[in-house]
């Protein structure tokens, strides 16, 4: 079986080191905003949810591209920059908010660092793993894949999906803000 990237939010501490390393490696600067992995922090509930590109087997971004600038190489969805017109169709199509227009007129998305993802290497708590799927990991990923959002900016989609996962993990019952006292 091929290796895949898995996000395990229960182990994520919200440190964002993955995002710093990703942007440093891909953009040459430290900028979590430009990272191909994004962390949604829900500090008041002590929970963080990573947003990762799932390299979908049936990838909406790829299917919708009018220029055929997106292609699949060994299971990884990649961008051919010279073909990309920066039209943003893929950005709207991705239900996970994981492809974005960048400031060079093209789009940026996760390329799994050519098979050795640096975010995984950086993650101290192993909240990101890159391995062949196990039953548990496949189930976890399946649950994340099922949550989709078509509305709003990529950031809004990620936040909404992250919040839904957070609500599931932490009881939706609001914590006692000491109003009782």
């Amino acid at each position, binding site marked *: 079986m091929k290796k895949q990237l898995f996000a395990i939010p229960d182990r994520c501490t919200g440190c964002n080191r993955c995002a710093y390393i990703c942007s440093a490696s891909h953009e040459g600067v*430290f*900028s979590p905003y430009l990272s191909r992995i994004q962390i949604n922090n829900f500090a008041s509930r002590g929970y963080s949810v990573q947003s990762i590109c799932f390299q979908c087997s049936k990838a909406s971004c790829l299917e919708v591209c009018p220029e055929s600038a997106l292609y699949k190489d060994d299971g990884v969805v990649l961008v051919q920059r010279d073909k990309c017109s920066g039209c943003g169709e893929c950005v709207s199509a991705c239900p996970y908010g994981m492809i974005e227009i960048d400031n060079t007129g093209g789009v940026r998305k996760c390329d799994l660092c050519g098979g050795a993802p640096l975010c995984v290497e950086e993650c101290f708590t192993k909240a990101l793993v890159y391995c062949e799927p196990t039953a548990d990991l496949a189930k976890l990923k399946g649950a994340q894949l099922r949550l989709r959002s078509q509305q709003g900016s990529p950031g809004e989609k990620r936040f909404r999906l992250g919040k839904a996962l957070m609500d599931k993990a932490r009881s939706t019952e609001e914590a006692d803000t000491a109003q009782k006292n």
Partner: protein
Amino acid sequence: MNLYAGRILHVDLTKGVIEPVPLRQEWLKKYWGGWGLALRYFWETVSPGVNPLSPDNAIVIMTGPFCATAVPMTSRLCLVSKSPQTGTVFQSNIGGGFGPELKLAGFDGISITGRADKPVFLKIVDDRVTLEDASEMAGMGILETEKMLEHQTGLLGGKTLSIGPAGENLIPFSIVGSESYRQFGRGGSGALFGSKNLKGIICRGTGAIKAADMTKLLDTIAQHKSENLFQEDNLVLHTDGSACLVDITNEMGVHPTKNYTEGLNENSDRLNADAIKEVKLADRACNSCPIACGKFTKTGTTEVEGPEYETLCLGGSNCGIDDLPAVILFNRICDDLGMDTMSCGSVIALAMELGETGRHDFGLRFGNIDGYISVLREIANLSTVRGKDLAMGSKKLAAKYQAQDLSAEVKGMDIPAYEPRANYGMGIAYATSERGACHLRAFTVFSNDPFDLSRQVMDVIEGQNFSTIKWSMGFCDFWATIDLKIIADFLSVGLGEEVTQEELKTAGERIWNLARLFNVQAGFSNVDDVLPKKMMSTKLKKGAYDGNRFSEEDFGGALSEYYRSRLWNEKGVPEEEKLEALGLTRFMVEEKQ
């Protein structure tokens, strides 16, 4: 610019003027960032005699050169101002995500002066900075304020700083909170925001930080991480959090218990790291920190990140409270109302001892959970007589009830959770810190010889000089094994120019002396560098140093030696020779007493 954003945001709340100003380059090599740079800006902005709660006082918050980078554990954001709790200049710092967000918005720091005529919040979205109406948030706790800020601005996941009712009511030990459970904890930063009618700040930054040689910097980071950071002395913070100190300090007999009367809590196993693990839901980290010392806990329906060691001791053992759910609730309420758990725990403990000794009955007793919890709102809201009394803080409460023999503070700042009678170095550190009793300037708890005064004096000076540069870089205290060589390495590679350990060492001493000069000009001298009567006259009970005290004679001798070693005169004023060596002559006190 490499490592820096290159601009400071000046906000005049009286005039409603917001102005981004280029960073003062000439200050960087002397003050670097964080504490040092904030102090330099602060000095430029206010006169030492300023009333802390007046519009003329400034709040300067500053990131360090590594903030918003992959240099680990560098998110700490420093706040420098004149403290309403101590009347001195003070520095307080906060972890989490606000500092990096601010820097990514294009600002190394913010300097806030004046006073808004109604409650406002500052909204920063990269270059777009505005003051917005916060009237609807008046009186709200920090948790609700954070939600409102996010909701009202539509900045999902925006990072915030805000105050609760304690800050609005100018309580001297009120805090500014961020990410619900992180604080500029000590010195009364909440009251400073409150005095300026500044309810909060929300920030979204989408910029980037550059390095001179990114590839080499990433290699340097990987090297110091694996060779230095990832060792047992630091990793214990990942497994156990700061609660790891509960067992250690009890064993050492330095664990303040029942209003600093005892050095050992016999029931500390109910509040130690293992007890925390029983109720832990998750490990939590500040921005760019792999260690994740934060322990997110839940008991009943109460969630909190913590309690941290200081809260477990000063809000637990020191109040005679050994019930973890009660301490968790105390922590959550303090975080929400916006009060420092340390000073709040300490003032409650003082009120408890006043009650126990029959000197004044506040309806508070050691170990009584109901009073301990219910009084918190009374303090923050100034809603009852005893609430108003305790809201004055330990120093004024003790003065009102002639209980100076029972209180434990220096310059109005409550003694942290390390008993100075069982570790003289901590006593010297508390007496000489720029903000009163503080454990984050020099830390001699792990010293082999805690009663060798000469040795302790040297350790304190070395610790203070090093902490000063560490906080100026924004490093967390929990990279316990970091040294000047590592810091100089990161700077040299990140900036693309050689930075030496020696110049960093000098910068640390320079910043410490500049803070001292401010305090001297604010009216402080050797007579203020004292320890509470309790530590000098009353014997410590229980624990490894049962019966110990820190005699006035021993303390006086140590203080004189401290001044001499620092090249300060007998009044505690830096000598001209020292100031010359540090390039500080222009800040000299003109009229030496």
